């Protein structure tokens, strides 16, 4: 019987590093999508481990919507500087110039323009044949069905009914010209794994994940963070109140809710995650509505 055993987090880590290295070995021009959130923080940390002592062999790509939390922009710039990463920021400037926003155009159209189209344009412009993403299968039911190597046609679209079989840890990275692949090295991690790993490895994350008194709009069950510069995005009569709260997931500030929480440090966050009865995606307005994630993924969303 075996004397050596990896803990489950170390086993997940080894699997993720294996995947990241396979992509760098088999693709011409990979890029890592970097959303500034906790999953991205873990993904970048794993990539640094994979290539140590060499620097990251690919750039980080942030598809910015202009609606991210200001704490996220600050964190992003400091973090990338500190680890010496090559950061590329791209925005769908056409849509932003036309004043795209979730309140007037609807969440689906806004996401379609600023996130999906922004991403597809950025990938095409960079000529990337492989893009790493930090999606996890436990997040959402269509993601539960996605392969680690997710093939995309020339239009960046996903065909869920016709996915390549994926056997053992042998990944088929062969593609035709124009096709590309989205790669999800942390597919098998759960939210609990992410928080536990961040705690164990002391991985830096955006301060919004820690509980603090913050101005919030209370809309039904949701806590929507209040920012002066977003005030056009709130409904009539909505006024902020101070609420002890934090974020379990980070997206665009008008469309990401907070949760009431007293968890001010990593130990408390892990304890809270273990006891949580609600999924983290519940705080993302984008996921509500029938089929929305699958539809967006077919169109090219990551």
């Amino acid at each position, binding site marked *: 019987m075996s*004397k050596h055993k990896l803990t489950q987090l170390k086993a997940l880590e080894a699997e993720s590093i294996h995947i990241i290295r396979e992509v760098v070995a088999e693709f011409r021009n990979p890029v890592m999508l970097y959303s500034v959130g906790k999953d991205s923080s873990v993904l970048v940390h794993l990539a640094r481990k994979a290539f140590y002592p060499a620097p990251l062999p690919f750039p980080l790509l942030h598809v910015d919507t202009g609606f991210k939390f200001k704490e996220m922009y600050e964190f992003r710039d400091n973090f990338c500087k500190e680890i010496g990463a090559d950061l590329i920021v791209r925005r769908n400037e056409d849509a932003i110039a036309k004043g795209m926003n979730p309140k007037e155009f609807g969440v689906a159209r806004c996401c379609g323009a600023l996130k999906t189209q922004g991403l597809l344009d950025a990938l095409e412009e960079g000529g990337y044949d492989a893009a790493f993403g930090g999606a996890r299968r436990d997040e959402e039911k269509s993601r539960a069905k996605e392969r680690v190597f997710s093939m995309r046609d020339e239009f960046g679209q996903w065909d869920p009914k016709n996915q390549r079989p994926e056997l053992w840890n042998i990944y088929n990275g062969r593609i035709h010209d124009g096709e590309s692949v989205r790669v999800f090295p942390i597919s098998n991690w759960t939210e609990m794994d992410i928080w536990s790993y961040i705690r164990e490895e002391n991985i830096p994350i955006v301060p919004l994940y820690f509980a603090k008194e913050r101005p919030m709009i209370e809309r039904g069950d949701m806590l929507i963070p209040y920012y002066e510069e977003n005030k056009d995005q709130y409904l009539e009569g909505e006024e902020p109140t101070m609420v002890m709260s934090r974020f379990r997931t980070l997206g665009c500030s008008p469309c990401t809710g907070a949760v009431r929480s007293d968890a001010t440090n990593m130990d408390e966050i892990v*304890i809270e995650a273990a006891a949580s009865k*609600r999924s983290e995606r519940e705080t993302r307005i984008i996921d509500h509505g029938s089929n929305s994630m699958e539809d967006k993924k077919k169109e090219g969303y990551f």
Partner: protein
Amino acid sequence: MTKANFDLVKEIELLRLVTVGSVDDGKSTLIGRLLIDTKGAFEDQLMAVRKKKGATTVSSAADIDLAMLTDGLAAEREQGITIDVAYRYFATPKRKFIMADCPGHEQYTRNMVTGSSTANAAIILIDARNGVMPQTKRHTHILGLLGIPHLIVAVNKMDLVDYDQATFEKIREEMDEYCAKQGIKDLICTPISALTGDMVTIRGENMDWYEGDTLLETLESLSVLDDLDEKPFRMPVQLVNRPQTADLPDYRGFMGTIASGTIKVGDAITVVPSGLSSTVKEIVTFDGNLEEAFAPQSITLTLNDNIDISRGDMLVHTGEPTTGEKSLTANVCWIGDEPLERRKKYMIKHTTRQVKALVDDVVFKREIHTLEKEDADTLEMNEIGQIRFKLQQPLNCDSYAENRMTGSFIIIDSFTNNTVGAGMVV
């Protein structure tokens, strides 16, 4: 959870599990049951699939449409069937489970192979009313070929056969006999009712005649220890790390995941297929250098001699070579839309190496019910047989029975780039 528990949580083991079965044998209900009873599904996810739209709470499997919870794709919900593998995650205080939920329809057998290849254990579901179906045998045969260490037959819907022991025993005997024919040992049979939860997470009172563990107890107690680290050392090289920075102008590290065995600083290694040898200088990781590393760690090795090594080469302990021949015989599960063609050239990806391979001979095809060998010229999708390949370059393999990592490969159609076969070296 309290602070004192952090160290315990760290020690949690990982069990990779696959569930397979025929259509309508209640797999979604079982998975829903496991997710709800282990709190692997969140309240808002359950509320979204509740049966009564007005309901304000969901507490039992009966309150929700379980198939809606597990069938994540629109096409699946339209057709009421599972098309692709869905991965589910749940945990008990002892273990974290990664469960690949595999479709039952024959046309989706290839997805079942996808979900099973990495599993430590499989649950094969059988509807007690229907008994052992052709699909049950196909799936069991594939699980046997893939070398899944633990097979559990869950005879479901016992509530619909009045919890009848004789019905269960008949199915158990038939499965025992089928498995014995292909040398599968360690078969566990459990009667369950996924709907009521009897013998899934609770014992219940209806099957006192059954003395074994509940399904969840079984899943928590199966051995997850493999002996991968005690097998000969194998490390396929993924990449050569040459930072060429000011600090590290001449650094050359060999990056890879240890497929099997252990490696220590100072060990003598040989590169296959070249046969060049050296000794290990350092075992490098981001968290500091190690004295010893073992499977399945992902590491970087530096050596004491400057020898030629590149992606696709394998590092082994000197004196523990692999085979390295230009022909290869393997059991193959064919998963391509187009049938396998004799004399056609495919690509084989084995560990980190890709070689051209010519189909030299279909040695036999396996009849799935009787397990007899049949003469054949081809394999159609979902068929299983033994194939002899001629290789453009030698591959360094072990037999699949010896080593699941270095004995497995995929077959790629070089025209479509699709993965068309799963190979297991004989």
